[in-house]
């Protein structure tokens, strides 16, 4: 297991480089000139030329890439074209926010999605099943912006229960931080919960009719034990895969939700950066998300082995 992990971590390095080349190239191929936006409304040609030189935008793309990766290896990810802030600083500011939002939404999703999925599989064809399904699918089809704005209007404007938006760091005020994050995490969590619920239900249905579950039942084990110990464990593979993917996506940022609740996370940053062609910022974030995805995939692969001992022999 350790050797497996060590090998995967080593493989991750070329992967990250591959990803950075891919995104760098793609960005450079995009139409639109960032400097026309950056040079200000007047677009002074002298300034344009100077900025092109300064950010090495006149160099051939491979040279630009090598310069970027050279600096990146020394821990310098460049500065934002738009705000002149160092990208490392931007990431350091936003990573905790994004992770907090991701973890809280995932907790919502897991706590709602998995039990609901199990319940509706066990009670398949009953009213409970139908209700659970309809609720889950509404969670998926209600647009986040609608749910978000409605929650703000109701909870913050009308009842004045929670802050309408903003972000307080955990270290500054723990409970206030949790409170401000509650609504956005819920909004993001509902859609994820729907996905997890549907998959849990389907996987459980598959396992509940399997031989070993019948055997377990025949042995007279309590329904609780049968479901939680024998069935659920075998149904977990797609759930693990999905949770890993969803978490990775959450790290990449939830643009609309962040925008509505004005949470300073990655989502808004990356969208603005793409629109402004703020190359260094996009590269920096992609680097972080790539590490996130690789880590989560690794975790998922490791969990497969834990859940399915037979995989260990290979």
């Amino acid at each position, binding site marked *: 297991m350790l050797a497996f992990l060590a090998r995967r971590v080593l493989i991750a390095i070329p992967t990250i480089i591959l990803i950075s080349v891919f995104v760098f190239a793609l960005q450079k191929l995009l139409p639109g000139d960032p400097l026309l936006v*950056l040079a200000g409304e007047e677009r*002074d*040609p002298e300034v344009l030329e100077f900025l092109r030189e300064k950010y090495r935008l006149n160099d051939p793309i491979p040279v630009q890439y090598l310069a970027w990766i050279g600096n990146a290896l020394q821990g310098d990810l460049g500065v934002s074209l738009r705000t002149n*802030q160092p990208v490392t600083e931007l990431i350091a500011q936003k990573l905790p926010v994004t992770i907090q939002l991701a973890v809280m939404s995932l907790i919502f999703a897991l706590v709602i999605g998995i039990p609901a999925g199990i319940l509706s599989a066990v009670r398949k064809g009953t009213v409970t099943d139908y209700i659970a399904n309809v609720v889950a699918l509404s969670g998926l089809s209600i647009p986040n912006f609608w749910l978000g704005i409605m929650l703000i209007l109701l909870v913050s404007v009308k009842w*004045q229960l929670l802050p309408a938006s903003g972000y307080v760091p955990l270290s500054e005020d723990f409970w206030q931080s949790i409170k401000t994050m509650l609504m956005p995490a819920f909004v993001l969590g509902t859609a994820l919960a729907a996905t997890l619920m549907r998959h849990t239900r389907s996987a459980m249905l598959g396992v509940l009719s399997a031989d070993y579950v019948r055997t377990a039942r025949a042995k007279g084990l309590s329904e609780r034990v049968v479901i939680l110990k024998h069935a659920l464990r075998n149904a977990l593979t797609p759930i693990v895969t999905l949770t890993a993917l969803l978490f990775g996506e959450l790290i990449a940022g939830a643009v609309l939700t962040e925008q509505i609740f*004005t949470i300073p996370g990655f989502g808004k940053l990356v969208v603005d950066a793409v*629109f*402004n062609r703020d190359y260094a910022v996009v590269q920096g974030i992609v680097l972080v998300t790539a590490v996130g995805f690789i880590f989560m995939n690794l975790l998922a692969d490791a969990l497969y082995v834990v859940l399915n001992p037979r995989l260990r022999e290979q």
Partner: protein
Amino acid sequence: MTQVKTLLTTALIGAAAFGLNAGAAAAKDLRIALQEDPDVLDPDQSRTFVGRIVYASLCDKLVDITPGLEIIPQLATEWEYSEDGMSMTMKLREGVVFHDGTPFDAEAVAANIDRSQTLDESRRKSELKSITGVEVLGPYEIRFNLAAPDATLLAQFADRAGMMMSPTAAAAAGADFGANPVCSGPFSFGERVAQDKIVLNRFADYWNADAIAFDSVTFVPIPDTTVRLANLQSGDIDMLERLAPSDIPQAESDPNVTVASEISLGYQGITFNVNNGERGDTPWGNDSRLRRALSLAVDRDVINQVVFENAFAPGNQPFPPNSPWYNTNHPVPARDVEQARALLAEAGFPDGIDLEVQVANANQPQQLMQVVQSMAAEAGINIKLTAKEFATLLADQSAGDYQASQVGWSGRVDPDGNIHQFMTTNGGINDSKFSDPKVDELLNAARVSTDQAVRKASYDASRDILNEAQPIVYLYHQKLLWALNSKLQGFTAYPDGMIRLEGVTWAE
């Protein structure tokens, strides 16, 4: 009285204890919501509208404007052009210090002008191009020597080019000044978290400190207009800029919210590619009758009513109809589909013609252009809309890779800024590449004269030509809308959209 006091104290303690940020009890911090996150906070490098709103509290300028666009003293107290208009002498305010304690004097002004003109990253070069030399005449007196008379100079000093940064801090930080800006405004820089907040703290040694009633100002970017208003209504913020016209009824129906408004200095319209590369060589670029037909095909009042809830101002010139520079001989045309069709037929297109218009991928421009599209269709003009993100739209426009483009201009205090660079042959942002020697002559003349009447005559004469040529079909002028907590008093709306906090207070 004592009872009231006790109540108030209790409320204050309560508010502090529970961390509530709503209401007048915590009057010492003012929270203002901006539509977007400002760019770099260096007056020489920045370029965004929201950035300028932050500067209004952070950096004083040499001169300021009144809501009626007259130039008034700020850091400069008096100024005078020489007889020949080739230089300007300014007297400076005494006893002013920058946030870092550096005294403000003529040397500081000279250093600032030098930085604006020579810093490689400076976006202010073209604005101060006319200044050829700066002479320090005394500790509080300075002279600017000019290459040619420049009527626009004072207006430039009323904006970013006139913002004074601490020369000590600017020399030390170089191009990184924006990370920790040091100016001489009513508030000093506290901290900035990108896309989260910018905090400014009261500057105790401000020369006009008595006019300032807040201990700090926090700017928070909230891009969604509905959410911005909801934040104001819930008490999370105290004030917001650029209320959406569609939100006006909701804002006005809330007794705790006041709405303020002023017509902006800018305009919105459709710029045609007249002579910018190959794509300028189309009937639309070559025949002004088609462009006039489009102008007649749209109903500007209906646009204002449908898209902007009647809150904006229909327009047909670079200046809004209420501006002293507006040429009243060419009023906003009424819609005339017959006339538009006749012009099309005259130009050889009796059966209609296609037109491709690029438009930014934001809600309002797209809504606007769909309305225009529908109106133009009735006159036989089939508009195809191409949505582009702004970076691409600008690049294509600058490269001439467009037929027509829906863009606008944020506006400048001096009329020159709204027209010269767009309509003169070598204008820096003349993307339509319109060129007419007579227009060049008139607009150049308006630039060098300091006589208002002479300038007005020049602009009026240029309008006579441009109204025929229509390289830009102007559509409307935005109205700037602010919504604020009704307990805030003394706020004045300015046509430049800035939020000036002098004299703004919380009502008891």
